[in-house]
């Protein structure tokens, strides 16, 4: 018995449903039928009922277990353990009251399958729908519906079918299609672990059979690799020199020698060793808490998502569209700073727009509501302070989900359904690909920096037409050159008729592509270690974002000439005194330690 038992799978199941629809009765039945109660418990509760002249109910078993603090194996209503010949189960009894929504969410998110209990007599309640909605949102794919108290409707097939029709329509609208409905009487034990003699019209599974046929999801292993950096360890004790990147593999497999990419930083390296306490491994797979070392000495931070070079990579963006369920006492409002936690990333964000708020009772949407109340679900547009690496929730669920923290409390959960800035995200993906395929030089940027006596830097000089950009650029180039700096000035024109000869340059039509190519050229030139000056007419924030994506961690400095600004510049000048302006730029280069 021992060996066989040890290898049994374990499954967490949540029972959800409206108050008094009979969750405890069904669970009590299951515990009795699978012989999972502590010795004497059933007899004890039966005797208590007899002494108090009330009929015995299976739900009392759970109540008794709940109260039980001092003797017997305590099985609290929040979690019960039991096992069958096939596997081990942890049953989570999620509270039905709306006030305990966060407990329901906490319990349900630990489960991989769910039973929703609906009273045959009372029918589908708002909570039945809200729970269904939340279970779907939490990512639970296997849901069975137990239509309970069939004894109260004389085991009527018509009544059962009515509820089945009503509720499946609802679940289907949430894209949960693989659901079965079981007519049950928890009180009499019909279809719990025994086939009901009272409902010969039903030939499906019993609750216990349904339980045993839930599947354990293994598809996470046959997937592209994804893992969050949980921490980076450098323990110096006992002469340990390893710098270990630690985390739990969410999807796929990682092996020694794999080339990997960190998002959103875009850094890349190769796996040198997989570290395990007292054991060496060649590869690791989803579900394992692991650690590994790299060939390169990179500064990696907690929060980055790792993917493999030859597989797909996460999306990186500052804007998301998400469904949020809100549990906070204070309403979720537009324009306030909140914290988002996704995987091990953490960033500040604001709600830019509330697209609609969901009415779970009627499954209708309210497009005019501009805040989200406690226990409501809504679709929102989020703007993040920092670039986030993530996925759309149906592809890699673990990276498409986040929680919202407000005033130190977890107040909501969200799933990402889209992102509006596809252009910039696509650009980032291209840049990542470029980085992954970059051919490394034998001379490092540190070596160049030491030889030239300055760091590389991009100086963008912008302003309206006629603001004197080119004049200042040339003066600055001359001054830096005469103080032995490696410097080069390049105007937009140098690019437009050469690199960009294949695209039109009239109007604004291809502006983004012109900027992108210019920034790629800048990136190449910056790799050579020089100080690069470029002039661009009326540069915009979105243009700068392209530059930042493409040139990555190179220094960038923006100078704006004129009184009306179209972007955030490091230096802004109203005056047209060229010498003064170039001196100020040199001062800033010095204060940022780019030149001495």
């Amino acid at each position, binding site marked *: *018995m*021992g060996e066989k*038992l*040890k*290898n049994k*799978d*374990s499954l967490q199941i949540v029972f959800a449903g409206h108050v008094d629809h009979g969750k405890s009765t069904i669970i009590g039945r299951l515990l009795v039928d699978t012989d999972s*109660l*502590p*010795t004497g418990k059933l007899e004890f509760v039966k005797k208590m009922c007899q002494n108090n002249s009330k009929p015995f109910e299976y739900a009392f078993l759970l109540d008794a*277990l*709940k*109260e039980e*603090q*001092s*003797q*017997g*194996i*305590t099985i*609290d209503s*929040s*979690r019960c*353990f039991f096992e069958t010949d096939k596997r*081990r189960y*942890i049953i989570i009894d999620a509270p039905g009251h709306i006030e305990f929504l*966060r*407990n329901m*969410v*906490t319990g*349900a*998110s630990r489960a991989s399958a769910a039973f929703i209990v609906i009273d045959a007599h009372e029918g589908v309640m708002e909570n039945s729908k809200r729970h269904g909605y939340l279970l779907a949102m*939490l990512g639970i794919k296997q849901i069975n519906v137990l239509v309970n108290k069939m004894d109260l409707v004389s085991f009527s097939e018509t009544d059962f079918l009515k509820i089945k029709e009503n509720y499946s329509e609802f679940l289907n609208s949430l894209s949960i299609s693989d659901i079965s409905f079981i007519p049950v009487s928890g009180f009499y034990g019909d279809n719990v672990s025994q086939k009901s003699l009272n409902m010969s019209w039903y030939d499906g599974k019993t609750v216990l059979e349904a339980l045993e046929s839930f599947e354990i999801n293994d598809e996470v292993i046959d997937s592209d690799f994804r893992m969050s950096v*949980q*921490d980076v*360890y450098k*323990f110096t*004790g006992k002469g*340990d020199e390893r710098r270990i990147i630690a*985390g*739990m593999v969410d999807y796929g497999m990682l092996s020694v020698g794999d080339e990997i990419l960190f998002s959103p930083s875009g850094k890349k390296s190769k796996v040198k060793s997989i*570290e*395990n*306490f*007292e054991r060496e491994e060649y590869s690791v797979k989803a*579900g*394992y*808490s692991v650690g590994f070392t790299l060939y390169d000495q990179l500064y990696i931070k*907690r929060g980055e998502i790792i993917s493999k070079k030859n597989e797909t990579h996460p999306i990186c963006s500052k804007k998301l569209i998400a469904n949020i369920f809100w*549990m906070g006492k204070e309403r979720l409002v537009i324009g306030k700073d909140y*914290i988002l*936690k996704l995987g*091990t990333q953490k960033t500040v964000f604001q709600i830019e727009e509330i697209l609609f708020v969901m009415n779970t009772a009627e499954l209708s949407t309210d497009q005019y509501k501009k805040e989200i109340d406690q226990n409501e679900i809504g679709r929102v547009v989020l703007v993040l302070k920092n670039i986030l690496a993530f996925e759309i929730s149906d592809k890699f669920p*673990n990276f498409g*989900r*986040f*929680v919202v923290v407000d005033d*130190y*409390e*977890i107040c909501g*959960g969200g799933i990402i359904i889209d992102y509006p800035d596809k252009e910039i995200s696509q650009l980032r993906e291209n840049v990542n690909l470029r980085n992954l395929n970059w051919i490394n030089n034998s001379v490092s940027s540190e070596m160049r920096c030491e030889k030239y006596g300055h760091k590389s830097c991009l100086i963008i000089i912008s302003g309206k037409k006629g603001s004197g950009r080119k004049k200042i650029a040339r003066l600055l180039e001359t001054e830096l050159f005469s103080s032995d700096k490696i410097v080069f000035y390049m105007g937009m024109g140098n690019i437009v008729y050469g690199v960009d000869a294949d695209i039109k340059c009239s109007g604004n039509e291809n502006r983004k592509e012109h900027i992108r190519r210019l920034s790629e050229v800048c990136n190449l030139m910056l790799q050579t270690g020089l100080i690069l000056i470029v002039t661009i007419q009326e540069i915009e924030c979105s243009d700068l974002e392209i530059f930042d994506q493409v040139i990555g961690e190179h220094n960038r400095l923006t100078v704006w000439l004129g009184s009306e600004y179209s972007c955030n510049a490091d230096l802004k000048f109203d005056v047209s005194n060229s010498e003064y302006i170039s001196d100020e730029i040199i001062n800033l280069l010095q204060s940022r330690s780019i030149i001495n």
Partner: protein
Amino acid sequence: MDHLSELENKSIFILREAYSQFKNLVMLWSIGKDSTVLLWLTRKAFFGHIPFPLVHIDTNHKIPEMIEFRDKLTLELGINMVYGENSEALLKKETFPDGNISRIDCCKKLKTEALKNTLSGKGIRYRMNHQSKKYEIDNDNEPFTGIILGIRSDEEGSRSKERYFSPRDKENDWHIENQPPEFWNQFKTDFKPGTHLRIHPLLDWTELDIWRYIERESIPVVSLYFDNGFGKRYRSLGCAPCTKPVDSDAKNVGDIILELESGKFSKIAERSGRDQDKEDGGGLETLRREGYM
């Protein structure tokens, strides 16, 4: 993935989250099987290192073998070991074994109060000096604000309601009805100053899982858990006057597993040998609301 590996990897994830998010973290080591498993998981999580101190609350009424085991492992593994006690109550003999107070009050004084004062740094702490191999009074009295504990939800009612990351207020009180939500591997890690935190990486383990894991990983445990020839063994360890051995002839881990799987203990509670749980109806929940482990 097999069940034990699943539990192991999840617990390691929680340990690493705790270490990454909190300063002044400690792990409470009761010398029992659960917290010894926790110690092993810590060494796995941190690749052979134990990057925070271990704290033991010495009631001075522990079974002597437990203290011997503590100090032996401390020296062997190079553990940064700290212990504390309620010296005042011990000096005034305000204890149940001295016959002066009830079991519950004794637990409050020797465990809860001692724990609070050891964590806050108000009580004297003793730290192992690995050079002299002796405990010395610790001059560092900075408070520990995050405590990792080896409690399991199958032990008793109030523990089954716990979160993995469980906040306590300044007085160490637990607000059972107002706990933070935890989902999608996201725990409450943002705290107002003054909040204490308890981290429970073993919440999903059962007594049987613990023994199976001890067997699989060959983890050393106190020999009190085994029948050493008298037909008795301890199923759960605590203070000598309040913890009774059970009748059993299980001589090794394999015997214990059989006993729990299909033998005489498969349906009898683990803590049934503990007298303090039996007093006051819900003794443990009352104690835990006020800061007991």
